């Protein structure tokens, strides 16, 4: 504590999330103390908001929502409240937030402290699901180090919500913290701040907070030195599937898809990439040169999503894999909205019939109609993710679809999956 200047000092240090010190002593040597004012300072708050806006940072939890806009909404929602570190990472294929908390917990927590200072929140709550004991130990250690040095301005606690796919959806998380109910809420207007105990709640993804922690220390130039103008900075991507070296990589935003997977070394010729996670989209070889950036991905109907790329080799069946994901997503519905509760299992069942080469004549029109009808009719985006996945599968694996429709099951349909899907999902 006690740094004389609370100015945010720009420097041109490299902006990298991985390769940061994991312990507080190393963190302090590298970055100095937390650059927040001793007490509420409106001018500092305004400058910090401007800094965040100038950085161009967008959320890394899946929705790519501008981080500064979220802060602006929170600043307008009254004093006091909670900054929530969303480390729920319900996506089974994703590891980036776990890796980040193991390797740079102080960067993440600093991002939360900066936001708390910037909007007058009086506490930071880290939400990590039950069961992730190694990560929880690392976070608990980091929190203890910070408390011992009286390093932070507002209190930090670790809480453990249930481990379910939709538990990390921000309205579900806010409701769990508010009332113990881990369910998404219906929010027709996303521009209204979430609430916990009637006070505002800012829910930020773990990686987003780590970027904010660095931006607050190093300024905008270091962040914008990498990536592309529209989407600056680096990003963390978990690469799994048919690769020799699965894991988390940090690459500049805008890196072409095929370059991102190169270092993970595909173990077979690559048939398709699942980009954005289980609620993401399949991308075929003609688009492997597409830059990993929202604008470019949108032109091929994909999104960056939660920062996941699953590599599918040519010994796999995209339809069978998609059916497995669809069943998983169906099992992870929170059970609130009819179109999701009934629609997702129906879609998953039809996809399985298709992969097994035993579709009835009405299957394809029925499947397509259901995809159209489910889209956009949930309280959260869970069903939309499932629809996007299945739609992309029908497009990218169109040849397989035609073969399976003609009654030829996939030779690879019963090969072991390349996907990580929890066996006990839904139980």
């Amino acid at each position: 504590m006690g740094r004389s200047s609370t100015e945010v000092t720009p420097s041109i240090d490299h902006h990298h999330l991985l390769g940061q010190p994991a312990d507080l002593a190393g963190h302090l040597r590298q970055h100095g103390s937390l650059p927040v004012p001793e007490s509420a300072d409106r001018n500092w708050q305004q400058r910090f908001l401007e800094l965040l806006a100038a950085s161009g940072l967008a959320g890394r939890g899946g929705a790519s929502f501008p981080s500064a806009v979220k802060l602006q909404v929170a600043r307008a929602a009254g004093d006091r409240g909670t900054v929530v570190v969303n480390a729920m990472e319900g996506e089974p294929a994703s590891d980036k937030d776990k890796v980040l908390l193991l390797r740079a917990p102080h960067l993440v927590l600093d991002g939360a402290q900066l936001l708390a200072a910037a909007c007058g929140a009086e506490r930071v709550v880290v939400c990590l699901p039950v069961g992730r004991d190694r990560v929880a130990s690392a976070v608990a250690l980091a929190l203890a180090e910070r408390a011992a040095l009286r390093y932070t301005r507002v209190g930090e606690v670790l809480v453990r919500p249930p481990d379910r796919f939709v538990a990390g959806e921000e309205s579900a998380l806010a409701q769990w913290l508010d009332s113990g109910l881990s369910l998404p809420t219906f929010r027709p207007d996303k521009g209204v701040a979430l609430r916990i105990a009637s006070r505002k709640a800012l829910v930020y993804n773990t990686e987003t907070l780590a970027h904010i922690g660095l931006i607050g220390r190093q300024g905008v130039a270091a962040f914008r030195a990498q990536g592309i103008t529209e989407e600056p900075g680096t990003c963390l991507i978990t690469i799994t599937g048919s690769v020799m070296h699965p894991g988390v990589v940090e690459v500049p935003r805008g890196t072409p898809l095929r370059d991102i997977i190169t270092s993970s070394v595909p173990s077979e010729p690559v048939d398709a990439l699942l980009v954005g996670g289980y609620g993401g989209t399949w991308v075929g070889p003609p688009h492997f040169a597409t830059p990993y950036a929202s604008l470019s991905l949108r032109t091929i109907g994909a999104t960056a999503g939660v920062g996941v790329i699953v590599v599918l080799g040519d010994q796999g069946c995209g339809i069978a894999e998609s059916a497995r994901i669809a069943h998983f997503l169906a099992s992870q519905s929170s059970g609130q909205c009819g179109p999701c509760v009934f629609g997702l299992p129906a879609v998953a069942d039809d996809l399985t019939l298709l992969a097994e080469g035993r579709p009835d004549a009405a299957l394809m029109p029925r499947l397509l109609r259901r995809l159209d009808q489910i889209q956009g009719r949930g309280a959260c985006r869970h069903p939309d993710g499932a629809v996007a996945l299945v739609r992309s599968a029908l497009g990218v694996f169109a040849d397989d679809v035609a073969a399976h429709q003609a009654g030829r099951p996939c030779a690879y349909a019963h090969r072991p999956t390349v996907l990580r899907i929890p066996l006990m999902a839904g139980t």
Partner: protein
Amino acid sequence: MLRIVIDPVACDAYGYCAELLPEAITLDEWGYPMVDATPLPAELVAAAKRAVRDCPRRAVMLQRREEPR
């Protein structure tokens, strides 16, 4: 301009809304309402208000159309 919004969490597929306002609301195969995306014509506003009032789950709402995001 008004639009109909269904709260999908509250909705329990009673289906009254589709009976009261078939011009703008149809039901999917599981009985849950699907709303016509086009703006609600003025002559349907009265029927829409009735659908709002009569939903046993209070899941039907009339909202001023937001600016497109």
